[in-house]
């Protein structure tokens, strides 16, 4: 599903250049649930941004579902993002003047799905994350865990090939974190490919495979025995 070869990325910080990714090789099959771990500054967010086409690598190749991702125009990148990728962010990034339902419907709007179908579909996804009754509420009326579930519903609504989660539990307490991870596991059980960036070991253990990044290179890549989050959730 994802194929990365010798990926390099550096940022210019004034006159200095900060080499963040120093040759990443990584591939991942459909249906995997991968945790990307590393301390802050290890390059994990940068990697995720490149995977999410929000940023571009300096060198190396990146293939997503057989499509080479290279030298995309803004418009093309937007199209690919919409078609291939769902995003979940640490800070939720919901649009604050739109209700939960409208937030979920937004990627469908950019897929040019008709309004009625959009609403039905969004409601369906809200139901799957257990927030059907909250459909008309604004983000400010939801708790952190609920916001993240809306964000996950939004990411899933576009039926992406890969779900990218950047510290999805970073702003949540552990109980809510497990709820969110339970949801992510369930989505993965349905066959969706998911990449989770995290620095929390207990979250990483809930994935099937863990990759450790350190100073811009992968230092460890192992399959793990998945810990089900459901057991922590009443």
């Amino acid at each position, binding site marked *: 599903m994802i194929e990365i070869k010798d990926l390099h990325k550096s940022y210019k910080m004034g006159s200095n250049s900060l080499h963040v990714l120093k040759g990443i090789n990584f591939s991942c099959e459909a249906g995997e649930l991968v945790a990307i771990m590393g301390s802050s500054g290890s390059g994990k967010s940068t990697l995720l941004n490149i995977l999410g086409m929000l940023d571009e690598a300096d060198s190396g190749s990146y293939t997503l579902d057989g499509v080479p991702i290279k030298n995309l125009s803004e418009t093309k990148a937007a199209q690919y993002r919409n078609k291939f990728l769902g995003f979940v962010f640490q800070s939720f990034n919901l649009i604050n003047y739109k209700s939960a339902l409208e937030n979920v419907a937004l*990627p469908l709007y*950019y897929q040019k799905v008709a309004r009625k179908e959009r609403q039905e579909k969004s409601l369906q996804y809200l139901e799957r994350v257990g927030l059907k009754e909250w459909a008309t509420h604004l983000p400010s009326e939801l708790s952190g865990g609920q916001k993240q579930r809306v964000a996950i519903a939004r990411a899933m609504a576009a039926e992406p090939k890969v779900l990218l989660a950047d510290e999805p539990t970073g702003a949540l307490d552990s109980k809510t974190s497990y709820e969110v991870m339970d949801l992510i596991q369930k989505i993965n059980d349905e066959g969706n490919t998911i990449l989770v960036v995290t620095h929390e070991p207990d979250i990483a253990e809930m994935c099937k495979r863990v990759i450790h990044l350190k100073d811009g290179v992968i230092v460890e890549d192992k399959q793990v025995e998945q810990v089900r989050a459901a057991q922590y959730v009443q």
Partner: protein
Amino acid sequence: MFDIERWQEIFDTIRKNKLRTFLTGVSVASGIFILVILLGFGQGMQNGIEAEFKTDAATSIWVWPRRTTMEYKGLNPGRRIQLRNKDYEVIANDLGVDYQKASILYFPNNIRILYNNDVITYELAGTTPDLQTIENEYLSEGRYVNQTDMDTKAKVAVISNKIKREVFQDLDSPLGEYLNISGVGFKIVGVFGEVGEDEDEEERIFIPLTTAQLVFNGGDKINNLNYMLPEKATIEETVASSEAFVKDIKKYLHEEHGVAPEDERAIRVWNPIEEAKRYYALTGNIKFFFWFVGICTIIAGVVGVSNIMMIVVKERTREIGIRKALGAKPWGIISMILHEAIFVTAISGFTGLILSMGLLELIGPNIEIDYVLNPSVNFQVAFTTVIVLIVAGTIAGFFPAWRAVRVHTIDALRDE
């Protein structure tokens, strides 16, 4: 443009950001409102000043002789100049000057006017038919002096409304009554009024010039020459042609009557359009001033709209980032922001336009201030102004939107 989904998205945004929309709308609407009201009053002042000059035909010229003040070709100063029929004819036929109407006034001396054996004291003037047009007089009853009266030297008289009120108050109509003027009976055939109610000129009784000269021993003497010139496309051209006309006839009259060319006081010419021109220049300046204030108002409006647009876009940087992450194309975002801006400015601009024009329509005709008459505004001008404001608002919205879209998605998402 007619994408219903897009409209729904925009209405959603507007509905959920009422204050922002309201502020943008108010600044646009008030700009248009103030401009239209100012322009309306500018027009009103112009109308008012024009109306003040409607009392005589705007392009009329009046000529009357006085005494000479300079010695010339052996003739002493202080000599009284007497105009004669010949002067009128030479000007009409031999000078090659261009005019629309001409008339003559002759004031007989030492006459006594009686009605029912009572003396009445009004001014008697012999005249020709075109005076009516030049003096801008209207007829209340009967008819004016006409060419047949002139040819037959008819003993008919036209009196003013004022005389009718003062002398013939007991009668339904003075038509058919006779005035005894120094022993000769004149039949009243018409009643006239002065546009603009000029009381002085309403003192007059007009009889045909030919009759006046014959009956009151006038010979070929005349007192006044009056002309009306054709109006040209612009006031400047009209003034120029009237000045040329005045120069030509003065030259002729000076030569004919032995007046020194530099003697300005022997033959007097009143050319009201020269005075009118000063007022027109004044209204021009006032209009310019109103335009200036109006345009400043519009500029303030544009700056206001730009400001709001910039803040709006700044406030929405994060939202733009989210939309981009979800698959919005850069142009899609720019056009969404502009679409919203155009929609809001257009609606509020036209609201301001309709309100201000409605106000002018409503109170305009009822305004009673000197020199202000029926303030109104050219719809096209107002409409264009709204379009200008919309275009300006669009341009003002475009640049911040463009910049916001250029911001890297990641940076936009980190924007707090």
